[in-house]
């Protein structure tokens, strides 16, 4: 049997930093660990309305926690709770039980990971009609902003897919830091002097440092990877304790939170490390200043060894600077490090002006093929056609599609569940609207970045074939829906090796310049 935690202190915090726990907490600990989000209110309202809520997503998304929290106010028996669908070897048995409760109109919360839920709706929807409602809702969790909102029936069942929840929001992160740093980290100490946990807890209670951690984690939340509540709590537990519950009163910098933040194991740590080492976190002035300070502090005999010797100290300083910029006082704020191309994507994604965003995307796509042009009013379509496995020697274009035939779409939560969770879209889409079926190019952060950095004029043959493929497939799909004369047209041919473009008019079987 798993250990049942009775204490709420640093020991628990150290455990927390080591992983999974929800099922083994006491009710008291559960309450203490719980971070209030809009999902709590949403669940309450749904239960009051007599609905069944299906919480789906990945392990660690907090589904079971919400069930355990709800049981206090809405007791089991009167309400139906399914804490773990994967305990059932046979979904038939589970569905029979669920159907019974559903037919009785018993409100409740069901935690079902998305894999099993998918299997249930695909295998059993003929047998249980309510699964069709579940499937319809699953397919419409995210819609595009200019779509006609698809009608979904949420009168008896509401599905909330926690895969879509952004946990790294300022509100959730701030609450989590405050809770862990002040309530847990300060209890259970019986020593003189300060230990590493107290040190870190005190730092995390500092308003400015807290703000910086929130900024940093929110920044990580803009990434496409899914972060669960458990991931966040693991991260915070670790940067407070290093996973060591015994107080270390004589500790070095390696146990300080700003180093621990890049040292642990888990999704948030991976994101933190990627971010720290990404070229986007390079700042000429901040970096040179920190490097100079590191050089001053460290002694090295040979100038050639400088990089090797100074680098670790420089990294440590930069880590600290991310969170303690005002204490280090080097004339810059850590926020200034984030002003880069990533923000261009975020601005594009959050942009209010659809027209402006659309024009910008069209300009970038046109510029991919013709770097010297900045046409925003239309999209020129290019074709690369070859049967061998090799990049194209030449591309051909004869068609432009006016910008009115495109829309920028931004994903958002379906209005029926928008009050349940916070959602940060990882992409926008350029939609060609002149066809029955949507033809879309997903503008992800990666695509946006590669299009944007083309301003640096990377020669065509050195560019990523994946990006080219993505764009050309979209263009070919659009061209399939466009009808043009097969007798005449203005045609451009781009030689990808030397960048030369030849343009010619074809008409009445004659070529003209």
């Amino acid at each position, binding site marked *: 049997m798993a250990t049942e935690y009775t204490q709420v202190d640093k020991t628990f915090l150290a455990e927390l930093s080591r992983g999974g726990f929800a099922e083994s907490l006491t009710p008291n600990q559960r309450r203490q660990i719980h971070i209030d989000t809009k999902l709590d209110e949403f669940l309450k309202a749904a239960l009051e309305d007599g609905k069944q809520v299906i919480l789906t*997503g*990945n*392990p660690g998304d907090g589904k079971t926690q919400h069930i355990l929290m709800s049981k206090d106010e809405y007791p089991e028996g009167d309400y139906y709770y399914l804490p773990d669908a*994967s305990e059932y070897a046979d979904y038939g048995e589970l569905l029979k039980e669920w159907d019974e409760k559903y037919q009785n109109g018993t409100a409740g919360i069901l935690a079902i*990971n*998305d*894999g*099993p839920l*998918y*299997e249930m709706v*695909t295998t059993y929807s003929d047998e249980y009609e309510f699964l069709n409602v579940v499937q319809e809702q699953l397919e419409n969790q995210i819609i595009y902003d200019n779509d006609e909102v698809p009608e979904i029936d949420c009168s008896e069942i509401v599905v909330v897919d926690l895969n879509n929840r952004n946990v790294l929001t300022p509100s959730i992160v701030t609450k989590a830091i405050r809770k862990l740093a002040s309530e847990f980290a300060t209890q259970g100490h019986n020593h003189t002097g300060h230990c590493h946990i107290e040190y870190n807890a005190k730092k995390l209670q500092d308003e400015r440092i807290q703000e910086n951690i929130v900024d940093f984690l929110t920044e990580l939340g803009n990434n496409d990877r899914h972060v669960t509540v458990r991931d966040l709590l693991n991260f915070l537990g670790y940067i407070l304790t290093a996973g060591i519950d015994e107080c270390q009163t004589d500790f070095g910098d390696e146990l300080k939170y700003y180093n621990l933040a890049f040292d642990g194991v888990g999704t948030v740590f991976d994101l933190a490390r990627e971010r720290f080492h990404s070229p986007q976190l390079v700042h000429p002035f901040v970096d040179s200043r920190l490097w100079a300070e590191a050089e001053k502090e460290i002694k090295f005999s040979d100038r050639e060894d400088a990089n090797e010797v100074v680098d670790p100290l420089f990294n440590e300083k930069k880590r600290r600077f991310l969170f303690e910029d005002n204490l280090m006082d080097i004339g810059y704020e850590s926020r200034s490090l984030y002003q880069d191309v990533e923000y261009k994507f975020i601005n594009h994604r959050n942009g209010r002006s659809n027209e402006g965003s659309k024009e910008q995307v069209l300009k970038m796509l046109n510029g991919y093929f013709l770097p010297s042009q900045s046409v925003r009013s239309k999209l020129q379509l290019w*074709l*690369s*056609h*070859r*049967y*061998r*496995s*090799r990049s*194209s*020697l*030449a591309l*051909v*274009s*004869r*068609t432009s599609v006016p910008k009115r035939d495109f829309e920028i779409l931004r994903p958002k939560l379906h209005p029926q569940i928008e009050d349940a969770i916070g959602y940060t879209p990882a992409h926008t889409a350029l939609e060609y609207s002149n066809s029955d079926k949507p033809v879309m190019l997903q503008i992800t952060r990666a695509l946006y970045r590669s299009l944007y950095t083309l301003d640096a004029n990377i020669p065509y043959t050195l560019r990523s074939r*994946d990006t080219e*493929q993505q764009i050309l*497939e979209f263009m*070919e*799909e659009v*061209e*399939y*829906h*466009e*009808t*043009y004369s*097969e*007798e*005449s*047209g203005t*045609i451009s*041919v781009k*030689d990808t090796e030397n960048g*030369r*473009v*030849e343009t*010619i008019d*074809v008409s009445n*079987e*004659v*070529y*003209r*310049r």
Partner: protein
Amino acid sequence: MKLKLNDINGEASEWAYGFKATSRSLKPVHLAQVIFGHTVGHVHSPENLFKFAEKPSKTPSEDLPEEIREQFEFDRREIDEQLDRFRQTVRKVLGNDNALYATQRGSAPTCTSDWFLIDSTAGVNAGRFLYHLIKESDSDLEEKLTAQLTDHHDSISVLFRPLVKDAEQESATVKEWQGPDVDDPLSDDKIATNFVEGFETLSTHLKERTSGAVNYPRDLRRVVKFSGFALYTYMANRHNEIREDGNERENLVPQLFNYTHEKDNPVAHASLECYDTVSTEVQATSRLGVEAELDKRGLRDTTEYSEDKILQKIEDHELLDLNRNSDSKLENDYDTFRYLFEGDPADDVFDRMVNTVTDAIHQSRYKTYTPVDTIQTYGWRMGLLKPRGNRANERRFSPDPELLEPILLSVMKPGEQISLQDLCNRLRRKYGIIVGGTENDRDHLDQWDIAVGASTIESDPLSNRNYEAFKQAVIELGFAREYADGVTIVTTEQQ
């Protein structure tokens, strides 16, 4: 009668595969030309297009026929310079497949419509085989291809329209594929039947005509890429299908797709072994073909071909028909042949002769281009094997996404939803593709004496890293979604 090694090489190939797979220059566009020509039933002779597409350094624009020059309403004072520059760039469109030569014969321009189909000489027999598979399929693939090829809305057709539109149209030399002598490859669940089914399923994913046009050349590429894969896999599996020595394997020749993107790990090594196995199998097919051909030529007759008489014919330079002008080279050729014959361990003289001829045609000195060279070269040209290029001697299976896509579309119906494991099982059973997604992968490889060795840094890189990376490749193609609890569902778009 003297033996011509090159003829035996070609005829052995025909005996086993139903076509001569002995062409150094076979390229994907050659197969495209033949399949499409057979589909629409006609070809063109776009003389003007070929004159125009010649390198200006070879035929300056001032030397072009007047009727071509008249089609260009350029400033007359600079027409030659402008035309030279224009041709320099534009010829690359037709030469995108690297098969545009100075003369029309043997040349194969890239083709988006029937205007670019010519009476090509390369890859005719292999192309016919592939067309036969398409025809055998219970599908509307031919109709869809015809609609695509007779549509001229695509930018490449419009670009060359003035030069090709009025080119003489003639019937394509359409001939029924005769099949190999050895057996009927379309019987008894042999691998070719999987490709007939594959074309059937692939066809359901191709575009229909919309608003008067069907301008979607990508579908042509999908068919050609899948055809290339069919050709490769058919040839790789032929030996196991036709051998009658009781050592037939139950499973198809494995093609371990290496998604680790590395060369030095257990998966990459096993993938390399699969590549070598294909070579060994194709060479063994040639041996069976050589055996049949030598039998046909009467070499089993020990009165005429006893060991002594064979050695005597070698001595007298009467055994082989070698196209050599120099006596010393001729002597060396015969010496080599004799060493091979004398060194062969087979007891039976006829078997020794079969082994010797097989070994000889696989030696570069006799200037024979064998099916092994043909298919492995084709393998990298079509994007199945990496690295590309003539010099590499160690290649692994690492398909381009543009190749993986039609392979997946050939095993899944539109709108069908299956788990990634099921997809992997289908790929393994139908084509011998292994990515690490099924519990039978290791047994399958074992059967072919290929083991995925241990790694010092990770446990089971085949079913972990390789399978994960394959999953990502399928996700990136837009076909899969990953759910919690290890479930990944593959779906293809409903047409």
